[in-house]
């Protein structure tokens, strides 16, 4: 136990050492300045962050900083991906003369309170949407959004430690590590630097050794909290070896094909496109794009009625291949960033934990 603790402190110390590079600065801030500072960010764009609406936590545009829930104890139901790859939007308009892109949803934004795993999620999506040719909507939203990360506290379902996404060293403009007595603030981009620069009076340049010790203590304590674990490292092989496992049939029988897992997963990116005419007999209208799910029956349906994934087992396999075995064009790196949402969301308990456990043990979960 103790050994593990020392080990992990060492890792963290190394981690901090790595971060302590000249262009990545760490500052300190007293909590009393937080609201004032966040309010000042309005200059950089419309403020977004996790808020409670109708009993559901969601990323939304905020009217006042006081609405934000930055406690880090809960993840919004729908991940921050919706701010970069919107759930539903108009891509193009058309008329008799042709198609015209619609970029009206692109605005300058500051997204406050993004958890480390979520930032990892965005970095994964970057691999898809920014891969040449870049998706202009995603890229536009990405370019125009500042990300202000906030540290969080693991929930019952968090898997980020297993996934290696409990810390993050890129993909944000600022990152606030909440150590209760004070914040350590990582500056991750020149935009982040500009934000700080505006309100320098709120920040202390010197981070003492004592502060660092507190941080390590916090990290150690946090590491203790995780309840779930997945050995992501061995999952690609296990997936490969279990392609014909009957475990899939067990889950396939249960799966409701409601698609909720894909909607809530930060690294699911699939969408559908459809055209809508205006109510007129002229040729005018719009081309819309909406999140889709590989759990739906028509996902792999092609002409002639051939469906490559008609069975639920095949649909599940594709999803778990992406989450546990490979992501983007990479082989051997999983898409799961360990947020635990699928664990919280699936009504019939099909999620990365139950599936990977069943595949490893070869046994289906007990009812």
């Amino acid at each position, binding site marked *: 136990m103790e050994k593990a603790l020392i080990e992990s402190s060492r890792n963290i110390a190394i981690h901090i050492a790595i971060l302590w590079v000249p262009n990545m600065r760490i500052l300190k801030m007293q909590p009393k300045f937080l609201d004032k500072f966040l309010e000042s960010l309005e200059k950089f764009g419309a403020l977004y962050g996790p808020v409670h*609406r*109708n*009993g*559901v936590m*969601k990323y939304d545009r905020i009217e006042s900083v006081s609405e934000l829930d930055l406690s880090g104890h809960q993840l919004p*139901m*729908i991940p921050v991906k919706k701010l970069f790859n919107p*759930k*539903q939007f108009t891509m193009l308009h058309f008329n*008799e*003369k*042709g198609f015209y892109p619609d970029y009206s949803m692109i605005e300058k934004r500051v997204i406050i309170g993004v958890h480390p795993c979520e930032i990892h999620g965005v970095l994964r999506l970057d691999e898809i949407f920014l891969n040449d040719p870049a998706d202009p909507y995603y890229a536009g939203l990405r370019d125009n959004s500042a990300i202000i990360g906030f540290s969080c506290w693991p929930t019952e379902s968090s898997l980020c430690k297993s996934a290696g996404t409990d810390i993050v060293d890129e993909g944000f403009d600022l990152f606030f590590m909440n150590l209760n007595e004070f914040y350590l603030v990582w500056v991750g981009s020149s935009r982040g630097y500009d934000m700080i620069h505006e309100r320098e009076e709120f920040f202390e340049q010197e981070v003492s050794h004592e502060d660092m010790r507190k941080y390590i203590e916090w990290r150690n304590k946090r590491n203790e909290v995780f309840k779930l674990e997945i050995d992501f490292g061995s999952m690609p092989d296990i997936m490969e070896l279990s392609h014909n496992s009957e475990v899939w049939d067990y889950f396939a*029988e*249960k*799966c*409701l*094909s*409601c*698609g*909720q897992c894909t*909607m*809530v997963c930060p690294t699911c990116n699939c969408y559908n496109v*459809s055209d*809508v*005419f*205006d*109510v*007129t*007999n*002229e*040729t005018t*209208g719009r081309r819309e794009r*909406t*999140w889709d*799910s590989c759990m*739906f*029956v*028509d996902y792999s349906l092609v002409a002639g009625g051939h469906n490559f994934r008609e069975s*639920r087992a095949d649909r599940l396999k594709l999803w778990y291949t992406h989450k546990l075995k490979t992501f983007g064009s990479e082989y051997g790196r999983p898409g799961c960033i360990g947020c635990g949402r699928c664990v*919280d*969301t699936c*009504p*019939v308990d099909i999620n990365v934990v139950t599936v990977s456990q069943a595949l490893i043990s070869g046994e289906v979960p007990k009812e």
Partner: protein
Amino acid sequence: MTTQEKKAAPKPKIGVYGFTGCAGDQLLIIHTEDELLNLFGSVDMQSFVMASSNPIEGELDVAFVEGSVSTDEEEEHILDIRKRAKILVAMGNCAVGGGPQAMYTGDKKYKERLQKVYGDNVKFFIEPVEAKPLDAYVEVDYYLPGCPIDQKQAFALITRLIHGAVPETNPHPVCHECKLNETHCLLLDKKFCLGPLVAGGCDSVCPSHGLPCVGCWGPIEDGNFKEHFKLLESFGMSKKEITRRIKNYGGHKILQYLENL
């Protein structure tokens, strides 16, 4: 750029008909204030009795029929409309599945009910028959499910037909929209909801109000009925209870899904 595109599609001849039902689907079209004038402007409205007098009953490009077939006269009428219309759209739950009045379909007790209700002596000038969906009598080209239909879905279909294009169907369950609307899943609180078994298109209004989907869009082909029943049973509901509820708007279409449960 030189375009030799035809400027506008020719106005199709449209008829809107109401059979037995609540008239909600026709009303929904009338209620589409923002589009109503545009709609009348882009079609040649031949017959829409609820909105206009002096219908012309001839050949039609598209007939939208709401309501179930519930009298012998309506049976004749739907056969006549089918003959005259190139495209027939069943509009709303009653036309698609029989509607709430068809919730007891399959119990073979219609005559009994009717007799119990009106007595033996009353002779009607038209003969009532057990409510059935349009496709029990004629071939239906497209279906607009819902009780009542949804404006967005309806106009997406109508405008495609105006342009002579094939409409898209929505093979996804209510849950899809439920999540797009960022609604908390009722099932997680062990509350009844039919969402996973029901075709989407309503924009998940009921779950969005914290209320269960009662299934008014009718069943979805890909629904995992067996497992969902099991799940609802684990919440303490009986199979009978779940079956009764799903039948409320399931009409004729639900029966095949309940066969092997």
